[in-house]
């Protein structure tokens, strides 16, 4: 049995993708990305800024709800975590619903700021724990924000990576394709292919995703857990507490 939980692996994977980031924004409903951002901040010696939507203590914003979007528009945020009810092979994301619109069979919460931020923040990291053909689809049912383009439309950022509960991918906007970068411990590449509803590039043999370092684990289970607990108390108590 691994010396860490599945969530702790994902937190480590996401935190490593933040290496070198200067200002990271995390949207709503994102406990794992939020924890990863706070972990990366701790690892950076607090030189990285984190804006955690819904947090008072881990957000420096004082100009109301619009400041996150204005700040991104000013080019002051370099990295963003985004999720997706559905994600397709061209990195289009759907946060609205599947099975028709407006009367969706399965309704998701809504697009939040993705319809703007996906264009405006240089590095967007997609995260979704569930890795299944239900989530990773050939074509999303509703485009909350497109992965690429449209041509001629002002855009200064977009998706660079996708992390799921099974694997990590990078994204190449020129080729509009994901590429498998690593498979998480205990998962097989065939399993990943079978669970992915779209085609993607892959090396002959994909490396195994490295687990969290002892330093990372100590931070996640200690100070970072307390920090994320302000915004996600259920998550901090049920998932990150080593005693739970």
């Amino acid at each position, binding site marked *: 049995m691994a010396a860490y939980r599945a969530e702790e692996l994902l937190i480590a994977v996401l935190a490593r993708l933040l290496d070198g980031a200067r200002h990271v924004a995390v949207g*709503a*409903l994102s*406990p794992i990305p939020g924890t990863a951002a706070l972990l990366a901040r701790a690892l950076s010696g607090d030189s990285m800024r984190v804006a955690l939507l*819904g947090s008072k203590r881990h957000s420096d*914003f*004082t*100009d*109301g*709800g*619009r400041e*996150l*979007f*204005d700040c991104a*528009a000013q080019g002051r945020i370099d990295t963003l975590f985004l999720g997706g009810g559905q994600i397709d092979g061209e990195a289009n994301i759907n*946060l*609205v*619903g599947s099975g028709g*619109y*407006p*009367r*969706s*069979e399965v*309704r*998701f*919460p*809504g*697009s*939040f*700021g*993705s*319809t*703007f*931020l*996906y*264009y*405006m923040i240089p590095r967007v990291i997609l995260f979704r724990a569930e890795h299944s053909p239900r989530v990773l689809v050939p074509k999303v049912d*509703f*485009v*909350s*924000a*497109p992965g690429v*383009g*449209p041509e*001629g*439309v*002002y*855009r200064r950022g977009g998706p660079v990576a996708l992390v799921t509960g099974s694997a990590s991918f990078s994204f190449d906007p020129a080729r509009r394709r994901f590429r498998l970068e690593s498979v998480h411990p205990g998962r097989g590449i065939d399993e990943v292919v079978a669970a992915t509803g779209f085609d993607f590039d892959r090396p002959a043999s994909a490396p195994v995703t490295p687990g969290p370092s002892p330093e990372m684990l100590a931070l996640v289970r200690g100070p970072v857990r307390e920090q994320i607990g302000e915004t*996600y*108390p*259920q*998550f901090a108590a049920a998932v990150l507490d080593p005693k739970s």
Partner: protein
Amino acid sequence: MSNEAPYVDLDDLVSRIEAGATLAVPPDYSGVAMAATRALVRRGTDRLHLVACPTSGLQADLLIGAGCVATLEAAAVSLGEFGPAPRFTEAVRSGAITLKDSTCPAIHAALQATEKGVPFLPLRGIIGSDVLRHRSDWRVIDNPFGAGDPIVLLPALAPDVALFHAALGDGFGNVWIGRRRELVTMAHAARASLVTVEEVYDGDLLADERMAAGTLPAIYVTALARQPRGAWPLACADHYPLDAAHLKEYARLARSAEGFSRYLARHAPPRAAA
């Protein structure tokens, strides 16, 4: 600092929201007037055009489940850590409400357009999304300062009423909102603002520069009601956190129409039964 502060009781406050009104409400973390919302449900005010500024949660779910909402304009509705908003999800499935799906900065900008008295504001992004495809009220023009540079124009969004809960109101009708400045934009954009306050501040919020910095002046405040625990079961700034047990229970009950009815009967019974 002129005028008598227009404090009224909660039922009087919500009676100013007419059926069919465009009602602006803040996100769950920003000061939601939940007691007033229950009073609105009790009253049976319906056909609301509800505008989440820019998202909502329990409040929208409650109003939708109780049949108060005809149209919902929002960037998202969910119960956050407590899962999907069940009555919202069900109303979408059944087609009971008309949806105007938006995105957070579009709602902020459309309110700012009304704040500034202009018919529209431009916004980057959006083009190529299905959000735009379903918003026939939005326009794309070629940026007159560029060439071959399409950009979205959002029409000004002018709520009839903004409704929210704040920590403090003073005797002049000024309201302390701290750094929750989305409430300022909402109030500037709305024709009327109705506010419940946790406590009444003894003094003039505009007289102390430190308090004034976080104060919405009475100019924009139509009426107030003193309502301790007015945001419950959601959080009120430093006064109380959200009531997790209650929200868990709500999320469980609201999964079915019957469970939701039981919740309503307990927490927002119709007036005659109260």
